[in-house]
């Protein structure tokens, strides 16, 4: 089975700071990481390959810095990686991104060998759209199941995807080729291994394709191919903290003190009273 797994190289949003004066995110100097929600997808791809043979190809549309992230995935055991990188791809929304990814997958099918399955993570930590899997499936015309926790092959060219909803576990039998998106934290990723990482460093099994290789209409990629307009962003106002330190004598004293603070706070007390006693 040839499995493609999508990787996004994202700024570590935990390290991104907010400039309250200008209302913008301070991204400078923030290290990038592999999108954490991609790891269950990577793990699922590797498990399927380990069980049924074949190869795992990590794919990413990103600037060249993403090679570091692809090396991590190769270190986990992926066989190859494909980096789709071009200035013409920059500034893409999910539509333009999924278009480039789908075309990259088609090129893999043509030149490396037919792709049976594409797996994506649930969503990314820096944009949280959860669009990519569905959109890639649409471009390719392949069936799509998301929220997947596990999958196995059943019969000829059919994969059974397990999907957990709030109340039930659903099983979908879908014909390959197909696209899956995993649920957040569905599978625990394996660690990087010395021999795999060494191979990644020495053999550099990373194929780089620019738009010269893909030959896409530049009106369909990057900023030009992105119909999404971010009309406005309203940042959550920064709440000025009072920074009061109180050293309670015991838990009872602590509870009293907190309640007193809350009930004497003009901004909080009315809501509290309403919630507790329905008072207006």
């Amino acid at each position: 089975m040839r499995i493609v797994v999508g990787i996004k190289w994202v700024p570590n949003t935990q390290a991104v700071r907010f400039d309250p004066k200008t209302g913008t995110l301070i991204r400078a100097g923030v290290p990038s990481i592999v999108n954490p929600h991609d790891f269950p997808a990577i793990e699922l791809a590797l498990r399927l390959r380990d069980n049924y043979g074949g190869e795992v190809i990590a794919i990413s549309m990103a600037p060249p810095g993403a090679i570091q992230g692809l090396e991590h995935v190769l270190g986990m055991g992926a066989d190859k990686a494909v980096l789709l990188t071009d200035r013409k791809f920059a500034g893409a929304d999910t539509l333009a991104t999924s278009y480039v990814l789908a075309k990259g997958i088609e090129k893999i099918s043509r030149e490396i060998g037919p792709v049976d399955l594409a797996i994506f993570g649930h969503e990314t930590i820096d944009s949280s759209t959860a669009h990519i899997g569905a959109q890639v499936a649409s471009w390719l015309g392949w069936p799509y199941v998301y929220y997947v926790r596990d999958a196995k092959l059943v019969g000829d060219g059919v994969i059974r995807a397990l999907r957990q909803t709030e109340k039930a576990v659903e099983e979908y039998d879908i014909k390959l080729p197909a696209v899956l998106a995993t649920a957040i934290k569905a599978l625990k990723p394996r660690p990087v291994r010395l021999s795999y990482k060494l191979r990644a460093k020495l053999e550099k099994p990373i194929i780089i394709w620019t738009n010269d290789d893909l030959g896409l209409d530049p009106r369909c990629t990057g900023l030009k191919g992105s119909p999404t307009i971010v009309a406005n962003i309203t940042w959550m106002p920064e709440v000025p903290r009072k920074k009061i330190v109180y050293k309670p004598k015991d838990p009872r004293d602590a509870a009293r003190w907190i309640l007193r603070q809350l009930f004497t706070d003009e901004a909080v007390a009315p809501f509290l009273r309403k919630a507790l006693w329905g008072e207006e």
Partner: protein
Amino acid sequence: MSNSNVPSKFDVVVVGAGPAGSSAAYLLAKAGFKVLIVERGRGAGTKELYGGKIYAPPLREVWPNLDKEAPIHRWVTTERLSFVWKGRVTTLDFKLGRRVAFTTYLTEMAKWMADKAVEAGAVLVDEVRVDEIITEGGKVIGIRSGPDKLYADIVVDAEGVNRILLEKLGLAEKINPDTVALGVKEVINVGKKAIEERLLLTENEGMAWLLMGDITQGIPGGGFIYTMKDTIALGLVLHIGKAYEAAKSGALKDTVPMMLEKLRVHPYFSRIWRDADVLEYGAHMTIEGGLRYMPKKLYMNGLVVVGDAAGLLLNTGYTIRGVDFAVYSGKLAAEAIIKAFENGGPTEENLSLYEHMLKQSFVYKELVKHSGIVKMMEDPTFFTKLPAIVNGMMGKLFEADYEEPTVLEALLESFREEEMSLTRFLLKMFSVVSRL
């Protein structure tokens, strides 16, 4: 998966891409050896935490273009030492006559050193932890990481202070809490202009500022303040064994983070970083200092030990030096390895040259010379009484309402207040100093 052409053996495997490992790897790769560096962090430098000041001359012997190429933040032009006691602060301020040390982040510096090694041809594999140094018939033959083994003619152990691999190998004993210290540090976003205005520095000038006194609440150790380009590093170093005892006996009131917090809001120091945010905080173990942490042997058949793992750290209370020692030991190890290969291979006998060279070098001589100071700094007579007495005397001299005492009167009075006799103090000092 196919592991087609990946070699299962290198000439040299270096464990750890810190200053010690990267300098050895750089020199060996430059000499034509096939070198692999294995680092558990994501990229070299990401696991590093130190104070802030590095002595340049030993590094220039490895990288002659250091001054031009390295990520140097500021050259240290002012050294300060403060005695802090109950709101009183006495400070010695020394303006240096020449540039010997610079400030930088070790994360940046270690990355630069590792990049140099890679440029010279070494292979760096990061995000991989070495679990074991493997031996066969008393000879080191390689390393193991998870299920993977990799062979080497020689392994350079540069794993740093927490030398789990050496312990497994039986070369180092389990850590004795009395030989190690805990370092905690915050990076404060003060801004370039504010740093220079508030500490009277000009562009590129830096300050190294060590603090002694009640900020460590009776635990041997001290505080540090280093100026980076636009931030200030503020931290504490605490004797782990003594801190543990104090915590167990109830003598210690605060947790370590609270101690650091109190230092940050100390009215005398806090004005330097007023209005500034804490960007990051972290902790790292370090060596108390002296020679006690040195393994009995720094080499064996197929192995050399460099840097912190070899116990090469000087911690006198008024200065802490490990990076330049680490780099220099890496250089000596590389030279000894090159010689060993010329003479038939990395046998125990050939590698003994490394220990010999190290013991002839300034690194070992410094450690021997200062071992008395290290002991002295652990003695409560000095690290607590000294700040108390100094500030007591200054208080008597300058806080008099009408009649000022003479210097001698003030000194004797503050000795009396600390229940210490001058003669006993001098005797004790003499007995320690004579052992230096």
